Structures are given as structure tokens and as C-alpha cells.
């Protein structure tokens, strides 16, 4: 197995804990489904071009952005923790180079960002697209397109 893959495996294992999952997945969902629908009595629609989005759909797209931004923090947290707990030097005296270490963090951000954004997309975007009255084909096209854009962004 390539050293970068081994480090990504390790990064994912140490990052995926209960607190992180709550922050990364549960919190955005609560925001969409609780806060989103709660505010519909105050904000009926948000204009998007010549269409009108309902508020949960509007907030769902914001939550995807929030999610991607959060996943970039993971890398910083990993590096900070590695330095704090002595793992940075320990890894560098192992069969890895600094490039392996940096690349592994970049890929970790990519994987976490992609998966968590896909989860939010899967749950939140039907609201968004229903609000836009898109067909099923258009919906899948846009989902795929957005996932690719997200992946490129987090890279």
C-alpha cells in the first residue's frame, strides 16, 4: 500500500469520532430541518434568478458550503494535534516523507469533504431541487455536477 494511502487511513481513523460527526453531519441537518422549517413562517421565499426558493432549500445550499469549509479545518486539526501529541516527528522518523504527510492531509480533506457534502446533498438537495421544480434527470445532473465542483473546491 502506498505511504500516502496508509497515512490517509490513519488520518481518517483519528478524525472520525463522535464529536466530529455531530459537527460535520448532524449539525447541518438540524440546521436545515429544524431551523430551516422553523424560519419558513418568517421567510417564505428567497429569490434565485427568476425562481423562488423556499427557506429550507436556501439554507441547504448554505450548509453544503459550511460543510466543505469545515472539512478543510480537519487538516489543520490533524497537524495541530500531531504536533501537540508528538506524532508529527514520530511520523517523520517512519517510512514517510514530508510530501507524503502533506499529501495525506490534502486527500483527507478531500475525502471527508466529499463524503459529508454528499450526505448533506443527498438529504438537503431534494428540497432545493423540488423548490426549483427540476425533473429527475435534471436533478441527477445537477447533483453530479455539484459533487464534482465540491471535490475540485476541496482539493
Amino acid at each position, binding site marked *: *500500500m502506498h505511504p500516502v494511502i*496508509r*497515512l490517509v*487511513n*490513519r488520518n481518517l*481513523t*483519528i478524525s472520525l*469520532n463522535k464529536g466530529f460527526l455531530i459537527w460535520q453531519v448532524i449539525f447541518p441537518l438540524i440546521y436545515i430541518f429544524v431551523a430551516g422549517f422553523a424560519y419558513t413562517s418568517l421567510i417564505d421565499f428567497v429569490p434565485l434568478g427568476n425562481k423562488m426558493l423556499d427557506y429550507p432549500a436556501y439554507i441547504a445550499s448554505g450548509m453544503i458550503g459550511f460543510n466543505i469549509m469545515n472539512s478543510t479545518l480537519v487538516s489543520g486539526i490533524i497537524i495541530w*494535534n500531531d504536533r501537540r*501529541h*508528538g*506524532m508529527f*516527528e*514520530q*511520523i*517523520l*522518523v*517512519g*517510512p*514517510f*516523507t514530508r510530501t507524503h504527510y502533506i499529501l495525506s492531509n490534502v486527500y483527507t480533506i478531500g475525502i471527508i469533504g466529499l463524503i459529508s457534502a454528499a450526505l448533506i446533498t443527498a438529504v438537503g438537495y431534494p428540497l432545493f431541487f423540488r423548490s426549483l421544480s427540476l425533473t429527475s434527470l435534471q436533478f441527477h445532473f445537477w447533483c453530479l455536477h455539484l459533487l464534482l465542483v465540491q471535490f475540485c473546491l476541496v482539493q
Partner: protein
Amino acid sequence: MSCIVAKSLSKSYGSTTAVDSIDLAINSGKIFGFLGPNGAGKTTTIKLLTTLIAPTEGTINILGIDAVQHPLEVRKKIGVVLQQPSYEPTLSVEKSLEKYGMMWNVKRKTRKDRVEELLASFNLEEIRSIKNEDLSIGQRRRVQVAREFMHDMELLFLDEPTVGLDPSARRSLLDFIKKKAKEGLTIFFTTHILNEAEYICDEIAIINKGKIIAVDTPEELKNKFGMEKTIKIHVQETQKVLSNLLSGIKDYELDFNSGTNITIRSNDSEEVLLKILQILTTNNIPIEDLAVVPTSLEEIFLTVVKNSNASSD
């Protein structure tokens, strides 16, 4: 065959020279002790040898590989337990051993077997499912050392591995290291506890102010630098009488804490002993106990470092 060869190795930080042109040649299958006072250059030397930092001058050859030119190749063949603690706080003891094995590309089946073996060897079975962040300092240190044995290696660097360990954990770790050395592993070992070095090291180097000031086996170091011997005599005589009788003799101390102890510390200890024995016999003072205290590595260390400091001043 030498598995570490360093020539004219130096490391400077600005105007400070942490390691000053040292030469090392360490044979395979040996435990090599690297001793020195705080700030002597031990950890910097380990960092140089493990390719963590590059030397300012000199060459390093580890297991036949040029460590400056091919650091990654060297790191694939060595294990390192650094002085500072290193752990994954959110992982359990068992999981951190398993993940470390994975990082070293150890096969899943081998990893599983080794985890069980190391948990037993390092007495970690009871705490196997506890997270590293919840462990005591000593337990974390045991996990850190155990973890390094998850992968195969030809050379192991241990930078003060027994810091924070209780006496029984320390002894079992030292015995484990000895066992591994017997199986052919070469070990580069630094410690401040000189009894440990005496217990496990085949060869010892003493470093002070970045320079190696002595290299030899513990026995040879004692022969070279252990000229001063210590002899203790216990008698039941009062302070005043003994002080008067021994007033003409040098290199002895009297201690009246429990009975009377006469301690001789001299390069001519036999001669001093004969004089004292003559006086005691002539005055009919019975000797209750007489012991020759063997020269410890600690005394040798202190002598060598003191001489080195005196000559550099």
C-alpha cells in the same frame, strides 16, 4: 559489521555547536548506550542518526546506506522511540498499536498477532480498550515503546525510553530490550539512569558539550576511570576516640549515624585500609563489618564529565 558509522558529525544552530565532530562505529546486534548530562547533544545526535535533521558537516552511514543522501531508505529499516511522548489521543491502546502496524505496512494477520503479543509483553492487556488520552504518563510511555515493535527493523533508537516508568515496568522493558538484542536487533539507547545503562549496554559512549569523551564497554570504562575505590568499615567506637586515633590518615570520612562508619575513598585505598586496620587492631577496636563498594558507572560518569569540564575550562 558496523551498522552505524558516523564520521566528523557536526550540527550547529547559529553560533551554538550541539554536536561537535563526533565519530561513531556501532556493531550489529549490540546495545550501545549513549550517556551524557542534560544538553550534552544526545537527542541531537539521535535526530541526526534518524535523519530527522541534516548534519552541518560529516557523514552518516546507517545499515550500509548513506543517511544524508537516502534518508527514506534508512527510515524504512529503523525504529525510533523519541524522548517526547507521542500518541494518538482518541485511539485505544489496542487500536493505536494496530494502526501503527498498518502505517508500517505490516500485514493484517501479522498485525493482529503482534498486537496480542505486545499487549502481553508490556502488560497492557488490562488497558487495551482505554483511550490513550485517559492513560497515565507511564502507561502511555509503555504503549509508545510497545508500538515500535509492531514493525520489523534492524536498528532501534531508544531515547530515554524508561522515563515515567515504575521500577517493575522499567525492569521488564529492559529485559524485553535485552531479549530483542539477543535475537539480533541493534539498539542505540540513551538514558540518564546509569544503572540501566550498566544493566543492558554492551558498549557505552559518554558525550559532553557535543563531544564524545569516552567510548568502551562498561567494564573497561571502570578499569580506565575507576581508580578511586570506596571501602566502608563499621565499628562500635565513639567519635572522640576514633577521630584522635585516625588523625594522621588522609582520604577517609567518619559517619556516626548508626555506630561508626569509616569510609575510605582513595586512589590508594588498599594502603589507607592497611593503616586504619593496624590502628584498629593495635587499639583493640573490633571491626563489625567491612565492605568494598564496587565502582559504579555513575561514579565513572561523574568523573569523566568532571574531567571533561575541567579540561575545556
